[in-house]
């Protein structure tokens, strides 16, 4: 039987991979994708928790985790749309999609 720990370990690993992607890629689009990976890993953890929660006294299991995933997906979609719009603006203005070139807020 798969214990919940397995699921959570998987979720943590994928999250960390997304984290590495955010920190180590120069391309803005790739960074966005990595963020999506992180959100996805979190969704996985949510559903896993939902599946492994203890049932209520009368045996019912509330699907609240899945509802939350629903919302997360919606929010992620909205966030991606706006972020990509900003990336497009960035490209139009500076003709680059490298994160390192946008360092105007130096000390």
């Amino acid at each position, binding site marked *: 039987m798969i214990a919940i720990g397995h699921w959570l370990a998987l979720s943590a690993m994928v999250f960390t991979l997304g984290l590495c992607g955010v920190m*180590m890629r120069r391309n803005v689009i790739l960074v966005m994708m990595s963020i999506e990976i992180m959100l996805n890993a979190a969704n996985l953890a949510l559903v896993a928790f939902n599946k492994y929660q203890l049932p209520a006294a009368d045996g019912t299991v509330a699907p609240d985790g899945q509802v939350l995933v629903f919302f997360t997906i919606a929010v992620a979609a909205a966030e991606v749309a706006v972020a990509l719009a900003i990336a497009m603006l960035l490209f139009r203005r500076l003709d680059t999609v490298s*994160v390192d070139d946008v*360092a105007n807020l130096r*000390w």
Partner: protein
Amino acid sequence: MNWLILLLPLGAAFLITCFTQKSKALSAAISLAAVWGAFGIAASHLPEVLHGEGHFVVADSFRWLSAGDTSFRYGYLIDGLSLIMLLVVLGVGGLIHVYSLGYMHDDPGFSRFFACLSLFMFSMLGIVLADNFFQVFIHWELVGVSSYLLIGFYFRKDSAAAAANKAFLTNRVGDFGFMLGILMLFYATKSWVAPGSGAGDFRAMAAAISSPGWLEQAAMSIGGGRWVMTNEHFLWIAGALTFMGVMGKSAQFPLHVWLPDAMEGPTPVSALIHAATMVAAGVFLLARIFFVYLPSETALSLIAHIGCFTAFFAATIATTQNDIKRILAFSTLSQLGYMVMAMGLGGVDASMFHLTTHAFFKALLFLGAGSVIHAVHTNDIREMGGLLKKMPITGWTFLIGTLALCGVPPLSGFWSKDGILHLSQHPPHYAHDWMITTLPTITAVLTSYYMFRLVFQTFFGRPRDHHRYDHAHESPASMWMPMAVLCVLAIIGGQLIGSPSTLEAFRTVTRPAGVMEYEPIHADEHTILHALLIFGLGAGAAFAAYGPGRWISPGRILALPGMRGVHALFDNRWYVDDFYAWIVKNIQQNVARACNAFDQYVIIGFVVNGGAWLTRASGAVVARWQTGSVRAYALLFLAGVAALLALKL
């Protein structure tokens, strides 16, 4: 109703300062009304006091501040002692207010003078009426401030400003000891006073100190009982410290240095503050808190010896002075020494008696001196002479005052001063102490000598400066009338107050049991002869040197071996002032410089500026983290989250 005694002068000071500075008449009127009104209220208690046999008391107070279970109260305590002092302060003060109308008439600071006088009245009355130590201390300081304002009245003169500073600072030294003493007493009696009484309340503390078992109780112990200081020892240290306040205010040696210099102030000020009232505050305080000193022999001995020495010391200096006010100032010092010594010997009633008569004739003498100065525009007696003809009222009242001061019967001084002399010649505990038994008498002879030296040089003989002599004239009525009143009091004051029953009526309710009863001197031939002998010796010497015949020239005396040195010693005030100046210059200034350096380099340089430097430097370091690079930020973000997680786990 009794609160008005305090409030009237305070109100007058306030009104004059804020509203009537431009109008001389109005300022004077307000100030005079306040003083005489307060006098009336105080005098209304007189009949009851005289029948009270020392038990009369009326008191009131309100709680002013409280901290925890200690509450500081402000109030008044009118008993026999307060009343006699009130009458002296307000009566003599009132007369001097009248005198000032004439004396300060042409001064541009007329209104300011009366405002300061009223402020002084308020401060002094607060000391007299106070019912607890802390109130006394507050008013003690207030009196110091008033004195500063009045000594430095001619503030444009450097010497006056310096004198005011000197007075204030010397008093400050005394007050430091005073405060310590108060705190010690407060600490030692805290658990013995009646609950609910204010902090430092005189009656409560008197009861506490005289309650059985208090003296043996341990005040402080170290090492869980290995070394114990009982209340008895604590008490004499506290008493000595409190006496430091008296030394400062009543100008006892070694805190006497301010009084001669205080003559820079206008003469009414000298008369009021530095002869009759403020300097007497110390003696008054001793009477009030005598319960602190009675159980402790050491403290009483200290007081007696300091008083005795001061009396002698001041008299010697007075013999060489040429400024009329300076001579009177040293005379005051000397008489204060007598009063303090009497306290130390246990003669509380004798001391207060002398305080009262001294107020009368010393104020008279000062007012007379002021009158002379007003007429000839100089203080130096070497420029005067023969003024008796030109200023008869001044001259005769001055002469009577001098006779009173020298203890000539039947004037008031005879009864009070000889009472003290008698006490010193047969002291209860110091029969073998040469200082106490001989110095006061020698001082009395010296007193006669220098006072008559003053009188002969000023009022008799040929005028030395004809220009001044020609312009001299008698003073206006506003000036000679108070002098006349004081003269009458100086004559009859002795019999008026000196009976045992009267002196008993004027005792304080905080008087401890065991104070010796007052023994009035009997006017028998023995005593009268004794007084006349002293007077004769001194006045005779003065007459010989400075009288009309000039049989012995002072120059010939000076030529004798050693006399030059003695004269220099006296003339330079036994070099005490020089000694203090040396200490200030070489010791105190260097300590101050060291403290300043510490302040500059360690506190300002290191802590304050260093702190700023540290902040700026660390800010500069941290600012470099703002690279603008998003990836670096993301990395830092992650590091932060990891750190938080690590902490949480």
